[in-house]
């Protein structure tokens, strides 16, 4: 996906994968289909890692911290895949948008738990979680675009603070963000 979604042809993909055109069509019906499969795989894998990291700690703020840490680590280690899922998703049309929204939805429950610890709970805006996750995706997108993939993990404290503030207030969010995430990210 170095060329951007629209410029990539099935010929490019089979050349890179070192497979025959036939083999491509045995597995995918089209370029779109292949693109969707790639992002589906990436979202599943990211979610698996996030859940894994979050389940190792007890409190909700620590879960967000560990989960995000695992997520950023994954993104930084797979920049091409991240580009496919985030950069292209915001530009590649209806099917991709569908995927983009589903990826956001996949992470909503992790943040929604914060409503239980917030004094405002369900009063908070209904799309707050989507806003937080979309914001994190956007920041990552910007770093990828600027070629700063290796700095993505440094964003952790700011993004944790950003995610926790609506639920815990600025002070508590800042404190929680300053802690080291406890799950090892390898």
């Amino acid at each position, binding site marked *: 996906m170095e060329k951007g979604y*629209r410029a990539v042809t099935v010929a490019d993909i089979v050349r890179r994968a070192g497979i025959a055109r036939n083999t491509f069509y045995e597995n995918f019906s089209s370029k779109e289909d292949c693109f969707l499969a790639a992002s589906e795989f990436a979202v599943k894998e990211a979610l698996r890692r996030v859940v894994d990291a979050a389940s190792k700690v007890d409190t909700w703020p620590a879960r967000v911290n560990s989960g995000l840490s695992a997520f950023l680590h994954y993104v930084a280690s797979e920049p091409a895949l991240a580009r496919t899922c985030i950069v292209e998703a*915001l530009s590649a049309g209806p099917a991709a*948008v569908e995927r983009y*929204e589903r990826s956001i939805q996949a992470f909503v429950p992790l943040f929604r738990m914060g409503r239980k610890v917030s004094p405002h709970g369900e009063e*908070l805006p209904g*799309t*707050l979680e989507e806003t937080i996750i979309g914001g994190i*995706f956007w920041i990552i997108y910007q770093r990828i675009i600027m070629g700063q993939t290796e700095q993505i993990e440094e964003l952790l404290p700011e993004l944790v603070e950003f995610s926790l*503030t609506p639920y815990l*207030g600025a002070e508590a969010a800042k404190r929680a963000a300053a802690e080291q995430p406890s799950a090892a990210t390898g």
Partner: protein
Amino acid sequence: MLETEARTAAASERAQLIEALIEVAAERGYMDTSIEMVIARAGLDRPAFDRHFRGKYDGFLSAWQEMNEECMASLMRAYDSEQHWPDRLRAVACEVVGSLCNEPSRACFAVEVLAAGDAARARRDMTMRVIASLIDAGRKEMEDPESVPHTTAEALAGSAYGQVYAKVVRGDTDELPKLIPQLMSAAVMPYLGVEAALEELDRGSNPPDRYRRPVAAIPADTPVENGEEYPPELARLPPGRHGLPREFVAHNQRERLIAGLAEAIAENGYSGTTIAHITRHAAVSRRTFYEHFASKDECFVAAYDTVMAELRERVGRAFEEEEDWPHAVKAGIGAMLHFLAAEPNLARLCMVEALVAGPVVVERYDSAIQSFVPYFQTGREGRSPEVLARLSPTTEEALVGGMMSLISRRIIAGKTDELESLLPDLVEFTLTPYLGSGEAAKVAREG
């Protein structure tokens, strides 16, 4: 006169082509749009298209560039229509939603052009940085403005974009107004706290008091009113069209890199500019870049300082050459406008991109404003007590700030070549507090 007519004709031809391109692309998508369809829709011929664009992709990018600039100008107008920060942001949100609902073909076109490549995205990202800076202004409302990370505003802007984009792609534009309270609430929360955020939810999608959407609906085939038309050849800054002044071209590598950065930024916006862009324009190696600068930001700061030093030098020289203060002010402003109009790339770099490039440069921008203050302060000498009583300690700063804002607005609107026509207004505006309006107008209008 003939020349003016020819220019107007060219401008309207270009506007017709862009309008047609937007319509066709909105209906058929990027891939299936051909130049033939566009010229047929515009009722023009192929040579007409070739006079304005270097092919289909260039046509798309030019239309997109104009759309972004119009959008930015209208967002700024909305933002300025209100006085207080959350209302200003709300006005911007209403403006975005209003224009997407009223101009569906433009929204569809945006979706199409974004899928067409990185250059289009870079342009959008520049607009997004401006929107982020409008959100980031929320920190000024706080006791400790530095307590919120700078990525917060960027994240909020990006996330708002994602949600709006998804609705537009799905054709659910009628649901956009529902996003306003949600997005406003999320944007206000980090700066004003949860109570203020909940208030924003309660306000629903209502526009703030002062903001009025100036035009309810613009039918797609009506050209935008005259005052808002962009000079055709300036909306886009093709590489090579704007020569850099000799001082910036190229004897040493550092200057070449700075000039390269200015060109790359004119093409891609600050956020869309990569080190590869800079080194390509500068025709030096990546290694050379890193011998001079640690990062893009550092290069930008150096470029900014260089341009401002040059600008200050020219203003200073022009100011010194005049005998009396009012004419010295006029000469100084004239020199500033002349430099900026002659160097659109540098003008954009120091007056527009500097504001969105991050805190380091914003600080420098402030100190640049300060450096022009003394020229105006001289005007206090020998004034009557009544006049002095009217002036506040911050009058000069406000005058420079107001002037800068007028100038940068023109640059954002792609009207850099018309900057010099601002001279009489700016002179009158800045001299009036000292001389009174009659005398100020007289100096301003002198040949």
